[in-house]
């Protein structure tokens, strides 16, 4: 019985590995110089083609083991906040970043994206620039403290995707943030 279970487990692992290998994204190559790329649009933009998924085989994959301890992941995902129209990291925010740096040093394979956001009192185009400065403030802090630039990405979403809906100082304060996501 035990032997059968082992064979089944091995078979499942091989199958899962094959599926994952097939789905893996190619490495992202950052082009230093502008390289225009063309992509086609769907001919009739309104008539969106709906493709029904075909289920070939239903596979139940056991939840993947976190290769980052949950508390470390929580530290990495903790947000830092900024003042209105500001991108300066306060001492309190720097303390939060120091904890992240420790996690990054202990997990050298991990890469993270830093996304800068703003509250919705400003306007979108200016806020895209401000959000970028917030993301870069964090990025630069990481670099200055020994994290390799190749492990970091930044993006600004301006005032899009607020963390909290609302028109009060509480909501605004929680939306002026840098958010962190582990990337492959």
């Amino acid at each position, binding site marked *: 019985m035990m032997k059968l279970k082992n064979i089944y487990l091995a078979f499942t692992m091989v199958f899962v590995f094959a599926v994952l290998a097939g789905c893996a994204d190619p490495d992202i190559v950052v082009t230093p110089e502008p390289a*225009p790329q063309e992509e086609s649009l769907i001919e009739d*933009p309104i008539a969106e083609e709906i493709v029904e998924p075909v289920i070939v085989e239903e596979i139940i994959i056991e939840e993947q083991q976190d290769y980052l301890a949950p508390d470390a992941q929580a530290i990495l995902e903790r947000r830092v906040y900024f003042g209105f129209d500001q991108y300066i990291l306060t001492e309190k925010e720097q303390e939060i970043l120091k904890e992240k740096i420790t996690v990054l040093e202990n997990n050298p394979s991990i890469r993270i994206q830093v996304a800068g956001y703003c509250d919705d009192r400003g306007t979108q185009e200016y806020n895209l620039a401000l959000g970028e400065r917030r993301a870069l403030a964090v990025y630069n802090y990481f670099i200055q403290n020994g994290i390799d630039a190749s492990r970091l990405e930044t993006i600004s979403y301006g005032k899009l995707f607020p963390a909290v809906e609302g028109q009060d100082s509480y909501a605004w304060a929680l939306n002026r943030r840098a958010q962190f996501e582990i990337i492959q």
Partner: protein
Amino acid sequence: MKKIVFFSVFFLSILLVHSTPSFSKTVTIDISSPTGKNTLSISLAQPYGNVQPNYKEALEQSMLKDIKYVPFLRRASNYKIMYGPNTNIEFNKLEAVGIDLLFAFLWNSDGKNTFVEIRAFDVLSSSTIFKQTYQIRNQASIQQAADDAMSRLLQHLIGNGSLFKSRIFFVQKQAPFKYDLWSMFPNGSDLKQETNIQGLILSPNISPDGKHIVFAHLDRRRHTLAILDRSKRTIKRVVYPQGTSVISPTFTPKGMIAVALSFKGSPSIYEVDKNLVRRGKLIAGRSINVSPSFSVKNPDSIVFTSSMLGGPQIFIKNMQTGKVDRISTEGRYNTDASISDDGKYIAYVRMAKEGRRIYLYDTTTKRTRQITFGPGDDDTPAFAPDSYFIAFVSTRNKKSQLFLTTRQGTPAIVMPGKGNQLVLDPTWSLIN
């Protein structure tokens, strides 16, 4: 000879005396002063002629819809006159009940084809503004007839009738991470989805020839500068180094693209050609420089938002001389400027305690005044090609919607849209 001169002068004098009243008394809309007459009352006569009743009703509905989107026109309710080919209109009666303008409709059919003649009258001068015949084939041609008639009326009233011939483009949220580009006429007709792509489209702008649309595209990893070829239905994107922010691209009147690109946190405004190759810097500095805007009349001037003095303010730079002038002088946060095609007006957003509002700077008088009043937030003003109407986004109805006002600040009218999803970044094109 003396007699001839004497009689000529005599008859000319009589002619002038008799014709003077019609010049002095005519319907006008004061578009330069908020104290002038800023609302005109318009009546639609009972349609005349034997054609399908649904055609008559559809045309009337289309006319009423268009009237609704012109902030200074008001329908004279409950007053409808009968009008036929031989009717002598009693203009004094119309004037007595406060009617300034009259539309009349003469329908006829030769069995195969249906036609309608639309006549517009100036009640105060008892004169015909225009009469135009349209062939009616279907619902779309009814809307086109109404739009053309309204264009002719606007041409007469404000000297530019392009509003109903101009297409408005805007971004609308389709899903949490999918914002597409849509377009329509300001009365909501001919609504089209222009793109269907993943990611976020922001700050679209149409080329002067109407063939291309440039926009910033955001996916989950980066910003890119993208250009849509409307005839080929393809999008070309330029990928800058990771972390670059691409903000507020816009076509210049010369057909180039001005775009704020930020490589290290200080967006400068670059000039980029249609192949998306950088040609040079228009606005540089260590501050935030975004949101370029150009007028057709003064293509060498660029209006932009800059934090060069601390908080964001509006500036104009003469590209020939390099001279930079500050436009916004009050308030700590002024952004999102749009200069009219005639170069005379700059609309922009000011943040105030009660919310964001749109202000208008007159480049001739150098004076600024508020033209929108909320509630909620009023954002992203965009001058129509006629330099008179202004589209903007407002949350005054607790959701983001497109509105239409004028540079006079006439009461804003909500434009029809699709659904209740987030709407952003209106922009116009006279070429459809």
